[in-house]
Every structure is written in C-alpha cells, then in structure tokens.
C-alpha cells in the first residue's frame, strides 16, 4: 500500500518538475527568440512617454503696467477612437455645443483616416462649451445604460496668446501663431526671451517611478516704453486724419528725443491680434505691417533740416547767411527748381527753411561738396537701420558717389529729400541730434525685462554725435522761427515748437514722378528750450491737398496738443514760472 502511494507521489513530483522545467525553458526561449527585441520595444513604449514642458510665454505691458499681451487657456476637443462607443451621440453633442457639422463629424468618426487613433474635432473650443460637454460626459457615464455615451471624447487644455486690447498697438506688438512662434514687432524681435526654454523629459507611466519635473521658469515678461493712452489717441487721430484728408494710409510716431523711448507708434492698417489668421486678408506685404519702421519712402523736404544741420555744422553758413534765389539751379547738368517753380529772391537761411526752398538746399549741398554732404548724411545714419528693437526694420537707401546708380544731380535732389528712401524712424533718429544737443539716440520700445521676480531696466543707447551742441541749438531756434514766421498750422498754442513740413512726389515704376500724388510729412518737437517729445506724421497720397503744410502739419498740432495733456507737460509760460527759483 505504502509502495503504491510512493509511486504516485513520485509520478506527481516528476510531472510538476517537468512543468517547472518547461516554464523555465519557455522563458529562456522567449528571451532568446527573434521577437524578444520587439517585445522589449513594446514594453518600453508603454513604460512612459517623452513630454515637452513649455514655459508660459512672457507677458507684455505698457509703461504704466497695463497688460498688452497675456495668455489664455484654450481647449482642443478630440475623440479617442478606441475608447469611442457611441459616435452618434458624440457627433450630436459637438454639433450642438461646438457648432460643428453633424454629418461631417459622424462620417469622420466612422471612417477615420488610416492609422489614426485620435481625431481632433476642434482646436480652439469655447471653454464654456467644453465645461458643459465635460459635465454631460460624466453624467452619461454615471447612468446604468451603456448608451447614449460620450466615452472617448477628450479635452486637452493649453495656453494661447491673448491680446486684451485687441487691435491697439498691433503694429508694435506683432502676434503669435498657433505653434507659439512670434511674428512681427516685439513678439518676433523678442521671441526667444518671451518663449523661454522648453524642457523635454521622460515621464514613466508607473507611479512608482514618478520623476521630479524640474522648475521651468516662465518666459521673460517685457515692459514697453509705449503709453497705452497716448497710443490709443494717436490711432484715433490718425484714423480721423485719413478720413479728413482722404489719405490712403499713414503713420504717426511720438518718441522722447532725450532717451529714444518710443511713446506711441500708430500705423495703418491695423489688425485684431486675437484673429491673427486674418493677416493675409489685411496686408498685401509684410512692409505694410508697421510703416514707420518697415516701409521706406521718399520723405521730401523734412530732409532739409539735415542738410541745413550739415551746412551750419561744417561752418559753410550761419543763420544770417543770405542766398539770392533765382528759382532754379544747375546741378550735374540738370535744372532743379523750387516747389512752386518761382524765384524767392534774397533769403537768409531761416527764409530758406521757412519757404522750403529746393534751390537753396541744392546750393548748400553743392557748396559743401559730395564728400562733406554725404559724410554728414552717413553720420545721421541715413540708409542704415537705426537698431530699433522691432522686427523687420528696413534700412532705406541713400545712394552714394561711386554707386552704379548715383548721378551728380543726386547731390542736389538728395539735399531736399528726393531720390532717397528713408523710414520715419530713421528721420526721427537723425533729428534727435538736433533736439538733443547734438547727441543722437537709438529709438527703442523695450523699457524693462521682468525675469525671476526682478526688473531689469534698459539703458538708453546713444548713436553718435553728428553735429556740435551749438549747431543743434542754432538750428532748433531757426526751425522754431521759421514755423512762427509762416504762421504754420503746426503751431501749438502755449508751446514753442520746432519742425519742418515735407511734401514729396511719389516715384512711379516707370522712372518718373507722379504729378498729382504726394507723401505729406511733418517732423517736429517741443518745447524748443527743453524738448520732451518728437512727433512724426506721414500721410500717404492725401486727396484733400497735396501739401504737407495743409495736411500733415495740422495733424502734428493735434497730436502735440494731445501729447502735452497726456504727458503732463505744462505750457511754456507756466513751466518757466514753475521752474523759476
């Protein structure tokens, strides 16, 4: 009997041992099989995932701390096709709540593209609609019946750029596309700073192996030199000016000539930055986005202030130097005439500026000679980018002796702003030398950076001293006198201003100038004894009048009157009284 049990026990033990050996052999076989690597890869694939953590994009503020560009959460709504149980209910829910086409969604859910496990239904879903759908999904899941069901419907939140001011300062700010890249303006220029450094990390699915996510600092926030109220006023004045004078487009810039801070910069057309995809339907080309910086044009007589500055600084003339204007002058074998083709007789240098005499300016340029004249223009930075911190700045063009397309007559025409392509910001930069005791400043829109709780303020950059302080003071006085003498529409009651109009014919693609269409400009600054703002006005093809003195000059006055109120600059009489010891 005992022997019988012993045999049974032995057989059972042998069977179990064989099974154990078989299991071990199978394990070894699987480990050594051809598919082992594939299994390992599958295991690795499900063990976790590479995740990229993007820092929150830095915000942009105006100089008074008003938010101009922030972030807002947006939702992506999609369907996990493997988890989906009721495509009809999903299609119905998203058609009712997200405004999607039921038939299209239903068809896509039933016939998704091959190899797709997740189908995106809406990339920018309304947060309220998403909240409702989430609640509905949970409600249906809690019901005992399997259908209807929104199983598989997923919601993913992310941050997207948002502009609380809409179209305000759109030409300065630029925009950020769906991929998070900045285009135009500050968004493009400082994209790397604003975007911060994304961090890529392997995140295991196993909670046992929870890894620590490193601290990801937000992108750097920026404080701009822009004053929101002034910017809004500039845009309103510009829009009204286009309507009043029948101009096609225009630009107005206000900056502080002492430190180069841009206080406001209006341009047309503008766009609602929250609807950046409309860019293509608003602009024909990129240079239209911010005309004062990206679009060079022939500015005309505003360049005369630089010619006069060169003539005074080189010692060629003084304000009292006289010139007999006969109405024309020969330069390089070509005849140059005044804007009204008349002779203005004996004029001193103030008269030359007051009456904006082309002939007088051409005479000054020829007396200086190309080397001196272009030497000064080079020092003023004409034909070179100013270095303003906005994307896409145009360099303009100043032809120089030796260039294939430079002719001797260009010396004469360049002296009164013809045959030279400049941006308003280039002319303003050059003019800061006159308003700022001979020192030229680099214009900028960045006031400070905010990083890790610290504020780093940007220092003003000086761009050289093309003229002596005495020359600047003399020319300031001459420009103020010329405005007062002609009773210019640019004058501002209570404030003494310096400035110059510009009316320039527009070159056509056929090589000659359009006789009926002009660019009207005005550059000016004040108060003359202590300049605190500089204003540039450019109206493109005004139809009410072709003259800058009748279109751009009154706009300058309007802007200046608004600026002195917003910047708290008292009238000269009050200011001098207040400053008196």
């Amino acid at each position: 009997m005992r022997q019988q049990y012993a045999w049974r026990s032995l057989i059972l033990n042998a069977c179990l041992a064989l099974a154990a050996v078989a299991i071990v052999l199978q394990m070894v076989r699987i480990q050594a099989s051809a598919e082992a690597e594939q299994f390992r890869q599958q295991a690795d694939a499900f063990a976790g995932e590479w995740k990229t953590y993007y820092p929150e994009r830095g915000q942009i503020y105006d100089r008074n701390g008003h938010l101009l560009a922030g972030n807002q959460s947006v939702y992506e709504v999609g369907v996990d096709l493997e988890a989906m149980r009721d495509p009809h209910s999903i299609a119905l829910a998203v058609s009712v709540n997200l405004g999607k086409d039921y038939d299209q969604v239903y068809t896509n859910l039933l016939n998704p593209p091959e190899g797709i496990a997740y189908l995106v239904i809406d990339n920018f879903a309304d947060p309220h609609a998403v909240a409702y759908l989430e609640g509905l999904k949970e409600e249906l899941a809690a019901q005992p019946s399997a259908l209807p069901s929104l199983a598989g419907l997923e919601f993913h939140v992310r941050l997207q750029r948002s502009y609380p001011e809409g179209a305000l300062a759109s030409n300065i700010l630029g925009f950020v596309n769906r991929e998070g890249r900045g285009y135009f303006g500050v968004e493009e220029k400082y994209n790397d700073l604003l975007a911060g450094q994304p961090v890529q990390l392997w995140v295991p699915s196993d909670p046992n192996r929870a890894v620590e996510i490193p601290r990801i600092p937000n992108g750097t926030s920026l404080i701009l030199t822009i004053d929101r109220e002034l910017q809004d006023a500039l845009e309103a004045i510009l829009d009204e000016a286009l309507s009043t004078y029948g101009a096609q487009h225009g630009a107005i810039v206000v900056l502080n000539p002492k430190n180069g801070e841009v206080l406001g910069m209006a341009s047309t057309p503008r766009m609602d930055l929250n609807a950046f995809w409309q860019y293509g339907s608003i602009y024909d080309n990129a240079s239209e986005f911010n005309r004062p910086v990206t679009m060079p044009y022939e500015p005309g007589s505003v360049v005369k202030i630089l010619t006069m500055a060169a003539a005074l600084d080189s010692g060629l003339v003084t304000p009292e130097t006289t010139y007999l204007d006969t109405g024309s002058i020969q330069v390089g074998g070509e005849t140059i005439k005044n804007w009204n083709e008349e002779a203005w007789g004996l004029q001193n240098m103030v008269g030359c500026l007051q009456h904006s005499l082309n002939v007088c300016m051409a005479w000054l340029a020829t007396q200086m000679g190309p080397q001196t004249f272009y030497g000064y223009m080079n020092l003023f930075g004409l034909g070179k980018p100013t270095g303003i911190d906005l994307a896409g700045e145009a360099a303009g063009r100043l032809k120089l002796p030796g260039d294939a397309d430079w002719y001797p007559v260009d010396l004469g025409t360049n002296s009164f702003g013809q045959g030279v392509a400049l941006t308003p910001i280039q002319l303003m930069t050059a003019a800061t030398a006159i308003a700022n005791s001979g020192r030229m400043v680099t214009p900028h829109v960045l006031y400070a950076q905010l990083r890790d709780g610290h504020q780093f303020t940007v220092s003003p950059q000086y761009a050289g001293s093309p003229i002596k302080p005495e020359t600047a003071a003399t020319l300031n006085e001459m420009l103020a006198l010329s405005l007062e003498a002609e009773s210019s529409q640019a004058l501002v009651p209570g404030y003494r201003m310096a400035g110059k109009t510009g009316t320039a014919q527009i070159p056509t693609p056929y090589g000659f100038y359009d006789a009926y269409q002009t660019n009207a400009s005005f550059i000016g600054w004040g108060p003359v004894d202590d300049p605190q703002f500089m204003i540039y006005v450019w109206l493109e093809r005004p139809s009410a009048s072709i003259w800058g003195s009748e279109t751009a000059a009154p706009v300058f006055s309007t802007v200046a009157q608004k600026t002195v109120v917003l910047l708290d600059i008292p009238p000269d009489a009050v200011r001098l009284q207040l400053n008196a010891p």
Partner: protein
Amino acid sequence: MTIAHIQVIMNSVYSFSHAFKQAPWRMQRQWVSLFLSLTLGFAAVAALYLMVTSQAAILGRQIQDLRDEILVTQYKNADLQTELARLTSQEEVERRAYEMGFRPVQPEEVEYLVVPGYTAPQTALLASAPALRPSAPTLRQEYNQSLLDWLDERLQLPGGLP
C-alpha cells in the same frame, strides 16, 4: 546499585535518545519546520516590499495629481489676468468714462499747480519677490526607489552593502 548497573542504564538512555532523534516522523517535522520558516520569511519580505511599493505608488500618484493641479492653477491665473486686463482695457475704460459723463480734457482747460512734495508717476515697477528656487531636488529617493532599485544601488557602491 553498582557502577555496572549505572553504565547499563546510561547506555539504554543514550540508545533511546539516539533512536528518538533518528525517527522518520522526527526528521519530517524538521524539514517541514525549515520549509515553513523559509516560507514565512519570504512572505514577510514580500509583504514589506508590497507595502513599501504601494506607498510609493500612492505618493507617486499624488505627485502626479498635484502637478496637474499646479498646471490648472497656472492656467486659471493666466485666464484671470487676461480677463482683468480685458475689463480694464483702454476701450472699456473709455466707454465707461463716457457713460459716466466724462469727456477728454482740452489743453486750455488744464490748470497746473505746484504741489509741494508731489512726485510725478514713474514708469511701472512690476517686479515681485523672486520665486523660491530649491537648491536640491525636493523629491527624496525613498519616494521613487523600489527595494530592488535600492539593493541594486547598494551593490553598485564600491564597498558593496554596508
């Protein structure tokens, strides 16, 4: 009783004791005891391992939840900031000012006064206190290291296990 008798008795006791120790049931009991001891030992280690790993898993899951919560809070914060900016935007403020009967001031209406001690508004100072920056990882190894990981790490040390 003589010495011979005592020797006989002693031999008998020794024989009995030897026979008792070599009894088959006695040997089986020893083996069973050994097996049970080992089993209990393994079970204790396994229970300890299970307890530690389950605690680590729970903490890991809590960390994941907290991380999600931080993200959601950041998003809410960004939303609120943008919403506040929208409510105080230039257009909105201007509209409300007009509704309340205000109008833009004209230069000739402005009266300038000398106010002793008055300081003109300065450009925005938006710097806040710097965020705390931990000098070392805040998540200790105990929270994400399994027993096997710990053993492996110890074995990798130059001196082996301490």
